[in-house]
């Protein structure tokens, strides 16, 4: 409906003739397709990191349920039966899940677990059973890996802040802070810092650790916002909840004109439907939250299942594939995440 398919010029007579041929041929094609042997259906196991309620994954606002649902939705258009396992963040459970999948004779195993020893054991057991493995976000020996690229995501956030500062505050004293789960998001934080220092080598970059507690954001940002003489403040938040808390802190301090914020994740706390009027909304283009870097954990199934299908069809897949992170702003949020609260 969009892009190339919609790019067809409908008036050309020659194209109309071609269209007519397609229409005439189409019934035969349907019949032929119907007569062909149905495509083999595969059973694919997905062992999730954890599906515990309220537990966020990868330092973002996404949960295991979001990841699982993305597999359910992505499987709708594929010849796939899914079997779900919950690794519960536990090595023994992860190994037991792999054993259960072997007993069930699944065609492929997607492993999302943080634990090198367990992942090695899982790899050995599945290899012995002749079941291919696709690893998600954490390496599994011998398996292709699909993962986030935290360093790239951080650089996208840092670039966005740097470009805004260069465009808006050129020549004005500026500081930068990275706030959130700083210690457990090292690559992300490093990416932000690299991008900022590349553009503004003299701008100091401070790290403010919240350990995921957004109630700490205002207290940690307070001294930065109250410092004299006042300076412009670039804020990279490691997740969306922290970005929203930072915005609140900045506004409470009366410094909204002097701050710009970029988050990471693009979870539902920061974007929503046409009527939700969340922070990232086309009608909110003047927000000091410039955007957030998409991690697409809610679309992981759409990325990973096609790779699994390629493996099952005997195609070679790269040893490492990464999430195509992208800055989501009020200008592109509805294109990237179309709202569906309309009837």
């Amino acid at each position, binding site marked *: *409906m*969009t892009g190339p398919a*919609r*790019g*067809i*010029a*409908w*008036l050309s007579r020659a194209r109309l003739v071609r269209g007519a041929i397609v229409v005439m041929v*189409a019934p035969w094609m349907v019949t032929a397709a119907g007569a062909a042997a149905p495509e083999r259906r595969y059973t694919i196991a997905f062992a999730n990191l954890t599906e515990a309620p309220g537990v966020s994954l990868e330092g973002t606002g996404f949960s295991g349920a979001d990841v699982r649902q993305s597999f*359910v*939705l992505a499987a*709708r*258009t594929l010849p796939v039966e899914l079997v779900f396992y919950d690794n519960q963040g536990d090595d023994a459970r992860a190994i037991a899940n792999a054993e259960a999948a072997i007993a069930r004779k699944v065609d492929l195993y997607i492993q999302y677990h943080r634990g090198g020893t367990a992942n090695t054991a899982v790899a050995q057991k599945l290899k012995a059973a002749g079941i291919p493995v696709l690893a998600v976000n954490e390496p599994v020996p011998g398996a292709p890996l699909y993962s986030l690229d935290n360093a790239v995501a951080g650089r996208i956030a840092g670039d966005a802040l740097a470009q805004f500062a260069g465009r808006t505050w050129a020549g004005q004293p500026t500081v930068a802070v990275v706030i959130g789960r700083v210690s457990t998001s090292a690559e992300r934080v490093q990416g932000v810092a690299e991008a900022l220092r590349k553009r503004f080598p003299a701008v100091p970059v401070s790290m403010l650790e919240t350990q995921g507690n957004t109630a700490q954001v205002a207290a940690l940002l307070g001294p930065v916002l109250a410092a004299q003489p006042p300076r412009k403040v670039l804020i990279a938040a490691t997740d969306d909840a922290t970005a929203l808390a930072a915005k609140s802190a900045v506004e409470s301090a009366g410094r909204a004109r002097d701050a710009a914020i970029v988050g990471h994740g693009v979870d539902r706390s920061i974007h929503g*439907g*046409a*009527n*939700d009027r969340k922070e990232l909304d086309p009608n909110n283009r003047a927000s000091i939250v410039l955007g957030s870097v998409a991690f697409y954990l809610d*679309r992981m199934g*759409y990325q990973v299942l096609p790779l699994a299908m390629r493996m099952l069809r005997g195609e070679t897949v790269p040893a490492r594939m990464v999430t195509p992170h992208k800055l989501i702003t009020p200008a592109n949020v*509805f*294109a*990237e*995440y*179309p*709202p*569906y*609260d*309309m*009837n």
Partner: protein
Amino acid sequence: MLRATLISAFALIALSSSPVAFAQSDCKSIVKPSPWGPNDQTGATNRVTPAVTKAAAAEIQTGKVTNMSYPLVDGVPLFGSRFTKTILTATSLAPGASFGENQLTYMEDTWLSQSHVGTHLDGMGHIGIKDCYYNQTPMGKFINQNNMTKLGLENLKSFATRGVIIDMVKVFQDAGKLKSNSACKKPCIDKGTVITPADLQAGLKMYNVTLREADMVFIHTGWGDLFEQFPAQNALYNSGEPGLGKDAAAWLASQKVVAVGTDTWAVEVIPSEDPKQAFPVHALLLTDNGIHIIENVRTDLIAAEAASSKRATFFVNMTVPKAVGLTGNFVAVDAIQ
């Protein structure tokens, strides 16, 4: 001075009439043309000819009428800022306010509502791609503060045609693939379930129905059970729905139907098959093919009737107000058999 003023005026006119000033899209490369010509604003109801209506009338055999509309009342599922509210004017019931010696009294209503609420029809002006709407209409040229000046409901012809109910719940039950939602009191297909061309064809085969040009197709998914529970299940009802995938919609379009109605709020599967596509079935049916969408249709009664009578076809009794410039409106639908 006069010359300078004239030059300025001409410059302004030139600027304001330039394509750049309107920022219009090339609609001929974005939307299909109408098969009824470049001036067509009617869409698929062009197919409802006298012969079609006469043939459809043959569906009336027992005269039994089955309701296919939900009540329009406060509390039914709506999105966000949408609302529907009535205000009764009954001043003449006050003592002494009746008219004449015969003491005539009267009442009337003020009805405040968006048009796309309850059981309603989506018109040709409801959905576009960029600023391009049905029949390659650059809609930016044809709207004002109050309404559209093209593609309004006043252009529609009759819906006096044959209706067909496809009981998708039965199709899924028979195929052993029904995954109902626990909140449904009767069997329903869960949200996110894609209805395929094969599903539609299985549903038609169930009652030995072959679609005809100008038919109106109604699909029973059971999801409307949540609508009936309003307001308790409004959030769940609105959170997604089972519905047509793009292939199924394209197949229905190829059958040259007039309208597609379901017991859901968008007819199409939500979440969409492609998470980066917004309402692709709406665009396919309305924008590209001029085929109406009817949402929040009460389908359970006619599905039950079809199950007991083994007849899935009926005469459609539905009219649409000649509401000038509107994109859609409430409708009441009856099936007459």
